[in-house]
């Protein structure tokens, strides 16, 4: 009665989940730009697209790979022994690959203007508003902390009510994007930024790699790990396996 997914099936599930996230979420950023949507309407549209994509991906591939679709989540779960370290590297590789495929296929749908004019929905610091790299790091770390804190509370903790994880996590992602989006682009996911950056590298859009490592990799990973330790300390869930 049912077989365990193979490693390759799990990796492909991560690839497809991240593909779905990055085609829909950052893609919404591109079309919002194309339609000339600005201000809060722009942020709300992108946040909603992300929230829906996250919720759907959790329900579709959650039962195959766990639907991390985010290197920060994978590393944070491994940091307290909830996910095997030997699977961390392949999970991240397939997440990044899914994100790159999403961005490349977005160009296939809309042409290179998706990159040159709208940056493939890549996250960059809002330097016009004075957001610096240290400020961006704090913002991304806090945003990813809230994401991982929510995952811990509604999914990892066995006391959480069943069936709500996808919806609640999708909505918290949308909430984080509404607040953090105008500061850093609200990546809270290294793969989500990596895909559009690679697409922009190829097709000519912006890809400030100096921001990538610190703001969009180090900070989200730290924020997620801190969330796991904090949640474990305050809530004392059982091992969560």
């Amino acid at each position, binding site marked *: 009665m049912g077989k365990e997914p193979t490693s390759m099936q799990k990796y492909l599930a991560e690839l497809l989940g991240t593909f779905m996230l990055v085609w829909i979420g950052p893609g919404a950023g591109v079309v919002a730009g194309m339609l000339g949507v600005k201000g809060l309407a722009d942020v709300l549209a992108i946040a909603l697209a992300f929230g829906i994509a996250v919720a759907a991906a959790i329900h579709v591939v959650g039962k195959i790979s*766990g639907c991390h679709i985010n290197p920060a989540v994978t590393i944070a779960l491994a940091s307290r022994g909830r996910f095997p370290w030997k699977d961390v590297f392949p999970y991240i590789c397939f997440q990044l690959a899914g994100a790159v495929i999403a961005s490349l296929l977005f160009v296939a749908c809309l042409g290179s203007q998706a990159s040159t004019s709208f940056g493939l929905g890549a996250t960059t610091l809002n330097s016009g508003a004075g957001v610096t790299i240290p400020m961006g790091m704090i913002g991304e770390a806090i945003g990813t902390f809230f994401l991982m804190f929510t995952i811990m509370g509604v999914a990892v903790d066995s006391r959480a009510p069943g069936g709500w994880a996808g919806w609640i996590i999708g909505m918290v992602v949308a909430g984080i994007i509404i607040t953090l989006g105008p500061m850093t682009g609200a990546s809270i996911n290294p793969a989500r930024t990596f895909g559009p950056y690679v697409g922009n590298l190829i097709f000519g859009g912006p890809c400030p790699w100096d921001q990538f490592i610190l703001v969009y990799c180090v900070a989200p990973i730290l924020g997620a790990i801190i969330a796991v330790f904090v949640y474990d300390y305050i809530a004392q869930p059982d091992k969560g396996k």
Partner: protein
Amino acid sequence: MKCYVCEKSGNATEAIAVCIVCGMALCKDHLVRADIDMWEGGYPFPPSKLKKKLPRILCKECYDALITQR
């Protein structure tokens, strides 16, 4: 309690089990044992099958309805 299946054919055989679905009492010739896989995991963990299975005693009719015809 006597086996329901045996009783219908006029035999009175002591039952040793009860079907967990319909509650029919069963002798050792009329029970079916189905071992159910136990799983752990589910979002955000990949599912994995546990080593030990869960025993379930069923009558032939419930076994056919629930398991054979799938």
